[in-house]
């Protein structure tokens, strides 16, 4: 027992009384349990996807055409879906990323304290919380009903999803750029557009690119916006602008409810492909942030 004996009193320096200590330990254990609870499904799903999907993956799988559901996974592949995912997501990124960056620039560099800028910022934030199915329904009512199903419609829906995400992340990154840089550029006689494009934007580019990549990863995995816009088909459609198309996510959605093992195996293989794409984008995003992090204060 640790005690300091002075004239008459002894001071007890042991740990606090049993119940307090127990509560503290329970709390800590509880937090670790929470962590493990989160790990379990993640580990489980990754394990399942990898084990069931890895056997399906091959070059033929990634490029071959989609066979009928009955056929086992050794026949054909999911080529059209891979193509569709890459092209539809790619086109959506082409629209959403530049517009998102410009929007973020508006809010932070030109908006100042104007009401309009604050309103746009606020609603961009709200828009990030709009479920992706709404974007799909929206493009259906506004485009598909008039122009038919197409990969393009799918791209529009994904772009609507990505736009607020890119705007918000651009805005956050631009905010971090110190004002002294802008002032130095102004003092050399640059116009506002020049200051923004040649000094402010480059200073924030690491975070902006990384945010954009994460938005792309999110869009690549989305299913709901595509279900209503591309009218999932089985054959490859090289024309983005007309006719139904297909994608990995919608293929998984369809095949998940199929009783045939072949179809299910194709779904697992596609799931692994999708996760790999999203994972690679996430890693590249981290690398970009790390490469440019020297500028963070």
């Amino acid at each position, binding site marked *: 027992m640790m005690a300091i004996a002075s004239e008459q009193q002894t001071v007890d320096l042991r740990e606090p009384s049993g119940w307090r200590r127990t509560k503290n330990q329970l709390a800590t254990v509880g937090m670790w349990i*929470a962590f493990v609870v989160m790990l379990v499904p993640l580990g489980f799903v990754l394990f399942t996807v990898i084990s069931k999907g890895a056997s399906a993956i091959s070059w033929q799988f990634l490029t071959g055409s989609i066979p009928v559901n009955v056929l086992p996974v050794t026949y054909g592949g999911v080529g059209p879906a891979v193509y569709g995912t890459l092209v539809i997501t790619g086109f959506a990124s082409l629209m959403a990323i530049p517009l998102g960056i410009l929007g973020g620039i508006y809010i932070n560099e030109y908006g100042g304290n104007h009401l309009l800028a604050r309103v746009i910022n606020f609603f961009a934030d709200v828009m990030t919380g*709009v479920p992706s*199915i709404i974007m799909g329904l929206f493009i259906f009512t506004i485009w598909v009903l008039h122009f038919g199903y197409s990969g393009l419609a799918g791209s529009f829906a994904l772009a609507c999803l990505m*736009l607020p995400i890119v705007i918000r992340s651009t805005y956050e990154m631009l905010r971090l750029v110190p004002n002294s840089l802008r002032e130095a550029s102004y003092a050399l006689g640059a116009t506002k557009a020049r200051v923004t494009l040649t000094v402010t934007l480059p200073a924030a580019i690491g975070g902006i690119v990384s945010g954009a990549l994460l938005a792309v990863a999110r869009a690549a*995995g*989305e*299913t709901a916006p595509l279900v209503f816009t591309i009218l999932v088909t089985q054959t490859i459609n090289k024309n983005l602008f007309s006719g139904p198309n297909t994608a990995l996510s919608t293929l998984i959605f369809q095949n998940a409810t199929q009783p045939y093992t072949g179809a299910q195996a194709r779904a697992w293989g596609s799931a692994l492909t999708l996760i790999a794409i999203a994972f690679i984008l996430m890693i590249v995003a981290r690398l970009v942030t790390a490469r440019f992090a020297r500028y963070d204060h």
Partner: protein
Amino acid sequence: MSMTARADSAIPAESASPLTRRRPFGDRSFQVLCLAAGLLVLIILALIAISMTQQSATWFTTEGWSGVFSTDWDPAHNAFGALPFIYGTLVTAAIAIIIAFPVSIGISLLLTEVVPRRFARPIVYVIDLLAVVPSVVWGLWGILVLAPWLQGIYQSIASGLNGVPVLSTFFGGQGVSGASFFTAGLILAVMITPIVTSLSREVIATVPAIDREGAYALGATRWEMIRGAVWPHSQAGVVGAVLLGLGRAMGETIAAALVIGSSATITTHLFNPGYSMPAVIANEFGEATVGVFRAALIGMGVLLFVITIIINLSARAIVDRSARRSRGA
């Protein structure tokens, strides 16, 4: 007024009145471009509201308010009551948040209070990994792996709870299925954990260090410090984070569509199959080619849109207010 250029200057000499030059065309047009991009947000949101309401109008006019909110959903017989789906959406979201809330709070507290900084990074990476798994993959795993496995568990629980008063209403009953309200809620919980965790972490991180130190200086244990110093500050912000998670859970479509059981029934038995708004829209839209059926599905989309916007607005308002208060404190 003249401006003598230096004799050896490489920079071109200016014209007669060099100080006066109108704002370059490029500068102004860039500003307009940025403004237009920003306005796109408002335009899209407005169009969503307008066009979807328009397309769903026949649902409201045909069914009337009582019809829209009735429990009778039978497209074959022209009954389009949405109540079963509203019920399912609320129930699954509630299950999701009840499960996700303690887990998320636990993890965020773990990261901010317990784990040393350099170990926090890998844990955050793992959370991000959780977030990057697409909804459809969760659904695939849910229906092909989780649901069959849970079916057996549900059955044992249900039969075990036979006759037990309160519990059997929720966890008992016949007709339990792997694809059910509870499974959907479970998967939704996993999906919203990353966002609730990261938002809570942000909120907890704004608690000033002096408050923490003050509690410790009084001899508090870590748990007591959390309850006394961290919690009061971050309460409102965490509530906001939870609301945002709730909004996410309500809108998650594909995972729910695959594992909820696709049965438009209202029941308290959580292990029974059910349906939710996003799930029915995703599953049945292909069949709803014309008329009131499609209008009904789009109308439920409108409901979903409105609900999630309201939840998001309240969440942001609560988080902002608490952030402002703690900054001023």
